[in-house]
């Protein structure tokens, strides 16, 4: 289950993340940004709870600018990072 979504302010930041996660063989999905999340870009990267640490490490090391990481909570999204 990909219960976390990472949002971005630029689609190029999202697509770079996509390529880096592919290279690192992290399981993820490219999904449209949920309406409940205010972010600049229409694409999000969704992944499972157990990948969070690796994703954050990669994003940090590669200086990706993110809007945040969100967890679905009923009809709302809570920001976790």
């Amino acid at each position, binding site marked *: 289950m990909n219960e976390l979504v990472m949002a971005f*302010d*630029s689609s*190029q930041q999202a697509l*770079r993340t996509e390529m880096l996660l592919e290279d690192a063989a992290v399981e993820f999905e*490219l999904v449209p940004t949920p309406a409940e999340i205010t972010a*600049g*870009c229409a694409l999000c990267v969704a992944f499972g709870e157990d990948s969070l640490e690796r994703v954050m490490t990669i994003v940090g090391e590669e200086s990706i600018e993110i809007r945040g990481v969100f967890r679905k909570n009923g009809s709302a999204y809570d920001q976790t990072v």
Partner: protein
Amino acid sequence: MNRPDDKAVIYLDHAATSWPKPEAVLEAMTRSMQEEAANPGRGAHRMAVSAGRVLMRTRMSLGRLFGVSNPNDIAFMPNTTAALNQAIKGLLLPGDHVVATMIEHNSVRRPLEYMRRRHGVQVDYVQADESGTIDTAELSSLCRANTRLIVCNHSSNLLGSILPVADIAQIARSHGAYLLVDAAQSAGTMEIDVERLGIDLLAFPGHKGLLGPQGTGGLYIRPAIDLTPLMHGGTGSQSEEAEQPSVRPDRYEAGTPNTVGIAGLGAGVRHVLEEGAAVIGRREWELTQLLMEQLSSVDGLNLLGPKLGEPRTGIVSFTLDGMDAAEIAFRLDRHYGIAVRAGYHCTPLAHRTAGTTAGGAVRSSVGYDTTRAETEALTEAMREIARSV
């Protein structure tokens, strides 16, 4: 006269733009146009995302070529000129001082002169000698407390001479100034590692040594530098905000990009990465040496720029006693099918330096696919033209 290699034209104008492009560039552009040329970053449908990936892949290839670890620090621009304008006008404020050289292209000199006239920026130009080199000590001595920027070309588009960018970067650093390098004549034929050389801003064309189509180019911006964007407008991101976004590369890429061109540029850069910029540059240098040796035996012909045996990019410029450069270029084209450039090459200051302000100069420039037979054809043609003077 027979033309070598069955090419319709002997193209020795690579310094203006490279031609022909590698087959892979044409294929990438056709594929992009046919399959994925939706508007990248606008909308999340699959084709728009594909188009976005084309931009990212090209950015990543450029990052690998220029030693840029974060590809989003590279913004696409329509050409070198746009990149230079973005860097110069986006950085300088009234009261700032700039040092440039006497052998800059008009795409550096004109923005600087505009900033001087309209925005109270002070500009000094360091003198270059006849062969196109500068005295770095003199450059250093022109720097002041308010020097914000040093701008220089990596290689002169008239003389082919190469400036010591790493040394100039150190001078910039020691004066607390940034270094902007115009890599119009070196990108794709010389090794450029922005980290190792200490370059803060790198303006480059996609359509010359990187073998992409016209309408492509880019600007590398060190992460710590925030430029005021020259263009404000849609980025497909943060659309609810009135301010131009701060996120890169969107900050510097307002408006629909040249997706098809950037697809071609990506293929060109990958061609360069496979061959190696230094390898291509070495081959071009060998051709220039051969050409210079041959041309020096033509009566009345004067070669410009660095001496035989010295480093230079693929440019060999010359004058002929008793004939204007424009007339020579015209005859080369009409009678011999050889394309070269004549005149002032957008760099009047360099002509003053080289002493060729009166009649201009003929500039021949080799590229990644130029053959010996082609340079020999130029020499033969020049021999005939010289006899007719």
